[in-house]
């Protein structure tokens, strides 16, 4: 019997846009396949030992709450989180969480705030909020039966830029993406996936959810081959309907 431990980082602080739906989606999709899941909530002051988890999730939040956790994340948990990323743990980071994994954040008044530095990316505060429905196409999800399209909703004023060696998660089909300039959305490094997309992201993108679950199982169990197929009619109807609505 397979078992996965999912660490939800700062669920009490980075919980603004329904991002806990991603943890719900991962948990349910595992349980429907008889894969046991333990969700461990880790926040400020809690010990974070990356070896204990198979998947890590970090969401987005308000500036107010983000400031509260910065010291804890960038000092106490920094080493362990960097190790998790380097050691191929499956990590999903959304919006604020995405930004925090980068090198720095430059504010509107030109101040530079150093962030985790786990990924070669940085964010610059913008004047306008980039808000709206988002569709992007991920090559790594493409197959004979799937066009790789992921659908969600973005709401961010920060513009993120990726360094030379860092790959985006997908090509923007509709929406702004990372910075409303280069036509790309998100970032991928080893088994770490970053995106600005809320929605929440995973529930109506079951192919992506299963991709992350498979990565985690592959890392943990040498005998794992592939996931049982689930009846995703409800999810795919939603996925297709919303995309059709956005791309008229």
């Amino acid at each position, binding site marked *: 019997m397979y078992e996965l431990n999912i660490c939800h980082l700062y669920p009490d602080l980075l*919980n603004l846009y*329904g991002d806990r*739906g991603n943890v719900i989606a991962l948990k349910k999709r595992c349980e429907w396949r008889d894969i046991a899941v333990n969700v461990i909530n880790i926040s400020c002051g809690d010990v974070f030992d990356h070896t204990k988890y198979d998947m890590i999730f970090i969401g987005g939040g*308000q500036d107010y709450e983000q400031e509260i956790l910065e010291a804890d994340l960038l000092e106490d948990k920094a080493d362990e989180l960097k190790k998790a990323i380097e050691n191929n743990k499956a990590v999903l980071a959304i919006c604020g969480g995405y930004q925090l994994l980068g090198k720095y954040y430059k504010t509107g008044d030109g101040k530079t705030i150093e962030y985790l530095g786990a990924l070669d990316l940085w964010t610059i505060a913008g004047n306008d909020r980039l*808000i709206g429905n988002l569709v992007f196409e991920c090559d790594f999800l493409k197959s004979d039966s799937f066009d790789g399209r992921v659908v969600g*909703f973005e709401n961010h004023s920060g513009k993120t830029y990726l360094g030379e060696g860092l790959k985006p998660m997908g090509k923007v089909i509709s929406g702004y993406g990372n910075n409303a300039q280069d036509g790309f959305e998100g970032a991928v490094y080893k088994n770490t996936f970053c995106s600005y997309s809320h929605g929440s992201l995973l529930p109506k993108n079951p192919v992506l959810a299963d991709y992350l679950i498979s990565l985690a199982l592959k890392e943990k169990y040498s005998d794992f081959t592939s996931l049982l197929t689930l009846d995703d009619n409800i999810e795919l*109807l939603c996925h297709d309907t919303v995309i059709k609505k956005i791309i008229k």
Partner: protein
Amino acid sequence: MLSVIAGKLAIIACKILKRSGTNMPGNVAAKIDKQVLKKLSEPFYIIMITGTNGKTTTTGMVSQILNENGVDFITNKSGANLFGGVTSLFISSVNVFGKCKKNTALIEVDEATIDRVTNYIEPDILVVTNFFRDQLDRYGELYSTLNKVRSGILKTKKIKLVLNSDDSLCASLGDATQNEVLYFGVEKTAIENTDENNISDASFCIHCKTKYEYSYFVLGHLGDFKCPKCGYSRPTPNVKCTDVLELTTTNSRIQFSIDDNSFEANINVAGFYNIYNALAAIACAKILDYPVEKSISALNNFQNSFGRMENIVVGNKNIRLILAKNPTGFNQILNYLFTEQRSVHVAFLINDRVQDGTDVSWLWDVDFEKLAQMDGHLSQVYASGIRAEDMAVRLKYAGVGTEKIITEKVYNQLISTGLDSLDTGNTLYIVPTYTAMLDIRQLLKEKFGLKDFWV
């Protein structure tokens, strides 16, 4: 006054064209005379109601209290709570010379609009119900909305405040004025099980960012909070609910006290959260020096506004409309559904137009898992509205059996199927977001006859 005349013509035009015309006439008048709102509102005694949840219901309750006390007043219809709507209220109430016989105004104001409105209006009383995350794509972050309300209060001179003691965000407005401030809240003795802190929009001290300690929660982040570092804590409420004697699907009976005197009241609208709205209305009446008996009578006679627990009788069955705008409101409605003794048939209508909030991610902050806990007690759940498919996905992941989930976007069909599946005497609960509420209500009006809300 030219601006008044123009505004009045706009109102007539809207009626002829059968448009709701709640905000537009006021905007037309303001274009002609920027100070029109200031000029028209000056002679009035002004009571304003704002906050995230409960504005309309609290305004309705205070309306009823004013009626019971024989006060002639003007008030705006729900949906007309933005700047244009507030101005339209005065336009429609005065004659072409800008005069009005009535001298009290009871106005519901959108929380993001208070700051602008107070550039022109000097409110005598401001009731702030609460602050919850709501439509983040419209309002930005919660603290900026709170700060906007504070900024509005700071501009005024004679304002008296009615604030929610259990809400750390709302209560923090108490220091924005030197005038009278009354607090309303729920005591520990009134709650059976303290609500699990599922989502909290304010866990950290507004002054020093330390995590609050709570001796009990009532709902969401509302409860007896205290900051262990700087000491900021729940102020003692002047009007407090000390016991809940009965909670049914149609009303709540409570025991409450004002300072040291104890009273009982029957609130003619269901839902624990409406107890807060009733307490706010009672506190407002206290500032006005009205006899408590009249407030109690008002609550007993209260008829709620469209879409707020609105009951429609269809033959030997019922339809109940309950507006849902944000996660906390939704969670309270789900709690309310547990009071239904019969099997639960509920439809969720989720739209994503501007007034509903274009981002439906918030559905994942609602505790729909509660529905799954109902097990056999839950008969049928309908997913409807523009984003019906997202609602269906949410229900599936909440653990509601897929055989119980029906996705039906055609409202006519939804009502037929919903009513057909109902057993005699039972109720079909319809829980829509704002524009879905307007749409379904239009249909129900045509099918079963209902009042136009702006008439």
